[in-house]
């Protein structure tokens, strides 16, 4: 795969914050504005995952660059679109966060500090570290504990929040995420295990997360599919190729 940087070249310390959004007009403006206020040097990219509301317009007005997908492709694919954009535009560091206001924009700089210092390739925002309280529903908390345990055992490192979508990456990780095979939905514990098996260093960073208000992407029968998909994906991850970072 050949990737052409249309702007600059790697090593200029450029930062991109990717926010996938699907009908988030009520919150996206505030999230974008607060990210820009918190990390003024970062560019903010909102991936409009075929929204039927004014998400794209509100995001643009708040100062974000917007990529509008012509089809609804789901969270993982929207995120990967941002990674592909970041790779083409030669961003050195990428942060992913949600557009629904769950993730505290002030914590973006905490995540970035870990990858910019070279201490980690992936800074994983954890809502459970250092006692910062986050109240999840019992079943959801149970799922988080299960996948936290599985991920920790698989990568031999304590992971408290494997379902966190608040993360920062180095450019090499972004390259890794743009390959075919990145999950189209729920890129969680399986991606973390895959990253670890491919030689990337993961570090958890305490972040503030708020409980989601409104419709969750884990509603209806999706929790059952989520558990099935994640267990299968984690199992198969061990039979896929490893050592990507070393080969690069």
């Amino acid at each position: 795969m050949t990737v052409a940087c249309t702007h600059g070249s790697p090593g200029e310390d450029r930062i991109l914050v990717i926010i996938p959004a699907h009908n988030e007009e009520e919150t996206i403006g505030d999230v974008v504005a607060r990210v820009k206020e918190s990390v003024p040097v970062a560019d903010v990219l909102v991936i409009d995952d075929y929204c039927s509301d004014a998400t794209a317009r509100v995001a643009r007005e708040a100062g974000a660059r917007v990529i509008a997908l012509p089809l609804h492709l789901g969270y993982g694919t929207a995120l990967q679109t941002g990674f592909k954009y970041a790779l083409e535009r030669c961003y050195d560091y990428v942060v992913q966060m949600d557009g629904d206001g769950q993730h505290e924009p002030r914590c973006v700089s905490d995540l970035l500090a870990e990858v910019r210092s070279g201490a980690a390739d992936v800074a994983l925002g954890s809502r459970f570290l250092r006692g910062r309280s986050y109240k999840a529903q019992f079943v959801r908390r149970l799922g988080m504990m299960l996948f936290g345990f599985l991920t920790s055992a698989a990568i031999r490192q304590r992971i408290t929040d494997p379902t966190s979508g608040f993360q920062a990456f180095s450019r090499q990780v972004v390259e890794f995420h743009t390959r075919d095979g990145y999950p189209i939905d729920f890129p969680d514990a399986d991606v973390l295990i895959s990253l670890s098996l491919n030689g990337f260093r993961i570090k958890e960073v305490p972040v503030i997360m708020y409980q989601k208000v409104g419709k969750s992407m884990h509603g209806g029968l999706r929790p059952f599919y989520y558990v099935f998909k994640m267990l299968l994906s984690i199992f198969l991850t061990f039979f896929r190729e490893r050592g990507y970072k070393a080969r690069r």
Partner: protein
Amino acid sequence: MNLRQQVMALIIGAGLFLMILDLVRRRRLDERSSCLWLLTGLGILVLAVWYDLLLSISTLMGITLPTSTVFFFGVVFLMAVSLQQATKISKLADQVKNLTQKIAIMDSYIKDLTQGKEEVGDGYTETLED
């Protein structure tokens, strides 16, 4: 198998075989997808002509009735076709995803260019491992 059954099986086998060939000729079906279907048509033809082979296969598999053997292979064939289609759909979905992402990124780039927000870059290129 009596003569009437044998003739019916021959007609069905030959009909299926010819229909698949015609679909490939008219490019309504690609060669790769036609393989399983052509093999099935051929199988029906062979078993219709060579009934003893069907009996031998049934005995080998421990099946009492030769018709059950035919049904068994019918089910196996349908499963194989479904699996082939599912893998094809997965591949197509992946291609659609990649194309959609590419179009969306290019679309945003074109919009920026037309609005004067962007300039054409310096063309730095790197090759990544697939």
